[in-house]
């Protein structure tokens, strides 16, 4: 029987008076590649942050490998949204990836070891940006920036990788490279990918979750026109990242 990497039970998160997530139940098994789609404001990022334990949940529980999040944070790597990053910060690609080697707590005069440097050099090679290691992050393209963030997440040596729209602000070639990289990484770790890229979802992920405050679908990723219509169910509501988003109608929840 496969192990549960993530177990989300009846998760509810409020921002003020507004519910970002309402009674979400979701299981992600070890080795799975789960794609999460949904409209803007549907709670995708909130769910990721709740899994990471940086979003206090109003109600419900999240377990990582059968235990509370606090003790399992070191097993998770996180790639945040490109738009949320400070791209003008004076730091090189190598230094950013090195930050993934920081251990919890405050160790006075903490410095990175030679082994940390070797790990980072290997990761930069793995994601294909070793030639950019000394470049300032302000000089990176969108694709290079995302690869750097993936390398930083991998520097943690995670068993569970969570990515928040890693292909936003990325050209078509880099997008393909990132998806192929994630496919490779999925051989070693569980992946949860939040994306607006509906085509990629059906091509790469193993399972699909559809979120609009509530979990409205969780299952096979084949996104035929019929499935999309079934999921979105009403007229196009808004367009973001060049992809039409529709308001999801309520479906029967899993739990």
């Amino acid at each position, binding site marked *: 029987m496969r192990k549960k990497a993530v177990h989300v039970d009846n998760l509810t998160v409020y921002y003020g008076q507004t519910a970002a997530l309402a009674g979400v139940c979701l299981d992600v098994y070890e080795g799975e590649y789960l794609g999460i789609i949904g409209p803007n404001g549907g709670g995708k990022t909130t769910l990721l942050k709740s899994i*990471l*334990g*940086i979003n206090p949940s109003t109600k419900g529980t999240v377990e990582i490998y059968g235990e509370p999040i606090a003790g399992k*944070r*070191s097993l*998770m790597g*996180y790639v*945040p949204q490109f738009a*949320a*990053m*400070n791209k003008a*910060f*004076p*730091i090189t690609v190598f*230094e*950013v990836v090195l*930050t*993934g080697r*920081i*251990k*919890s*707590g*405050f160790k*006075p*005069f*903490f*410095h*990175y070891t030679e082994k940390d440097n070797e790990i980072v050099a290997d990761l930069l090679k793995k994601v294909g940006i070793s030639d950019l290691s000394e470049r*300032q992050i*302000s000089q990176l393209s969108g694709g290079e920036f995302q690869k750097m963030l993936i390398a*930083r997440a991998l520097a*943690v040596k995670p068993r569970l990788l969570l990515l928040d729209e890693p292909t936003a602000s990325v050209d078509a070639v880099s997008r393909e490279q990132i998806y192929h990289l994630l496919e490779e990484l999925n051989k070693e770790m569980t992946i949860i990918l939040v994306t607006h890229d509906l085509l990629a979802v059906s091509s790469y992920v193993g399972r699909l979750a559809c979120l609009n405050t509530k979990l409205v679908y969780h299952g096979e990723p084949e996104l035929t026109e019929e499935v999309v219509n079934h999921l979105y169910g009403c007229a196009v509501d808004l367009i973001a990242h060049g992809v039409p988003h529709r308001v999801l109608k309520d479906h029967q929840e899993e739990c």
Partner: protein
Amino acid sequence: MLDALFKYQFLQNAFWAGILASIVCGLIGVIIVERKLVMMSGGIAHTAYGGVGLGYLLGFEPIIGAFVFSICAALGIGYINKKGGAQSDVVIGLFWSIGMALGIFFIALMPGYPPDLSSYLFGSILSVTRFDLYLMIGLTLIVVFVVVVFFNHWKAYLFDEEFAAILGVNTTILEYGLLILVAMTVVVLIRVVGIILVIALLTAPAASAGLLSSNFRNRMFYAMLLGIIFCLTGMWISYELNIASGATIVILSVLCYFSLYIGHMIKNKTNRSLRKSLSEMNEEIK
């Protein structure tokens, strides 16, 4: 002036005050600029005026009052911002004005003629006392220690707070710690450039350093070096021409920033033109 520096203690005090102010400016100024905490620093500095007024009213060292009020303002602004429910600039504005108002209020309650507060408002590096200097040494040592000892944590936190939190770094401690360091820095700077001009010395050397280097650590060193140049040159001009030292230091700092900015713009434009010419030449060759 060099002879006078060895002869007069007030000039020696001023010299060391300039050096100490430049060190904290270099370290904390760069962080403030990167973290976009300039206005918050202004709010903390102006709140300190309430402490100066209270010090005069109750008869203790005004700089101690400024220190206590600055720390309270830093923690208060930080707490309200973290809890949410109020806009950051509104909270800063309210602390800013209540601090100034309390200062005026406390001074008005004093019997007899009010004291001259211009050295606290506009700074007077030449009137730094031994007590001020000892306080500045203590605060500078704390600031340097905290920044240097946890440098890699600071860097990770400043670049991406959320990721640092996921790694298990206690970002709440860093957040409040940073605000307390800003408050300490403000107190060090008050005697040099004054409450009103603190923002300039916190930002101008750091922003100038940002135009000279794209390395975080080097920016801190450049900002310290520029701060020393501004403070000591300002002190010298102030001594020779008998004009306000705080204003002189700030004018020098801001002029330097704009000179560097213009130089930076010209350099970028020249580079762009060169690149364009080269690509046109390549096209012609093809």
